[in-house]
């Protein structure tokens, strides 16, 4: 899967779980400030991403992840 396709798939997960519009899911978007996502939303998103991309994300890897870009890089590094 190339990076663009992976990001589109990532975006689909984010739109569905966070209930936001696709155009809100930019790489710079911050989960809390821009997407109104709380900690449980992030847990839910990670679970959806794990399922969708068939990867496993350890809790410790999520420390400091605050933007879409950071989360996407975390997932894409595992593909």
């Amino acid at each position, binding site marked *: 899967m190339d990076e663009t396709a992976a990001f589109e798939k990532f975006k689909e997960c984010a739109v569905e779980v966070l209930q936001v519009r696709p155009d809100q899911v930019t790489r710079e978007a911050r989960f809390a400030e821009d997407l109104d996502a*709380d900690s*449980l939303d992030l*847990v*839910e998103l990670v*679970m959806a991403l794990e399922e969708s991309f068939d990867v496993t994300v350890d809790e410790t890897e999520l420390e400091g992840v605050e933007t879409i870009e950071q989360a996407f890089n975390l997932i894409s590094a595992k593909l």
Partner: protein
Amino acid sequence: MGAMTEPAGPGRVVLITGGSRGIGLACAEMFLSRGDRVAITYKAKPPEAEGLLCLPCDVTDAEQVDEAFTEIEARLGPVEVLVANAGITRDRLTLRMSEADWGAVLDTNLSGAWRVTRRATAGMVRAHRGRIVFVSSVSATSGAPGQANYSAAKAGLIGLARSLARELASRQITVNVVAPGLVATDMLAAMSPARLSAMTGMVPLGRVADPAEVAAAVGFLSSPEAGYVTGAVLAVDGGLGMGM
């Protein structure tokens, strides 16, 4: 949000751990009578009851918990109502209590409830609805000689419930506790007649409870009507624990 995210009425998928007898079985019968789809887990032997999905499961084993949920999801659907009821006793005065007695009770009664809840919540969070009820005990707050392990575990359920109530509130999932007093179950039958008589004498209502009376409280807390009740401890103890 609001009414849309409340659990649907009859026909919900309900899981009761430790549902083969006593309070657990009474809960299963109550939910069945309301038209819900009911699964129970048991350790020793399944109940002779019609219409229940009965699954063997030791709640001290996360793998067995996962297998039971997977089976329920395949046959009934995702669990919408969880009643964490599985519990054991290893009553002894602390001076004579072994590490094993302590550990076994904590692992089943407290950690077991946490294991099944953890497995159940992923689906509830996704569905934005759910009801979780923990079966605690009057001894959680009053203490009981010979039950340091049991009381500690049952008190632990209250802290567990209240933390979860906060964690899951944004998804309209409620988490509550029922604290029964003396209930006519096998657990009570193991008590000496003299002690039972003395204990009953301390109950303002002057009798032991029928398991169905505890199930009725569980039924309320898991109903759509109880949507604004979370983190509550509902005593069903004939007044035994008043003021605790």
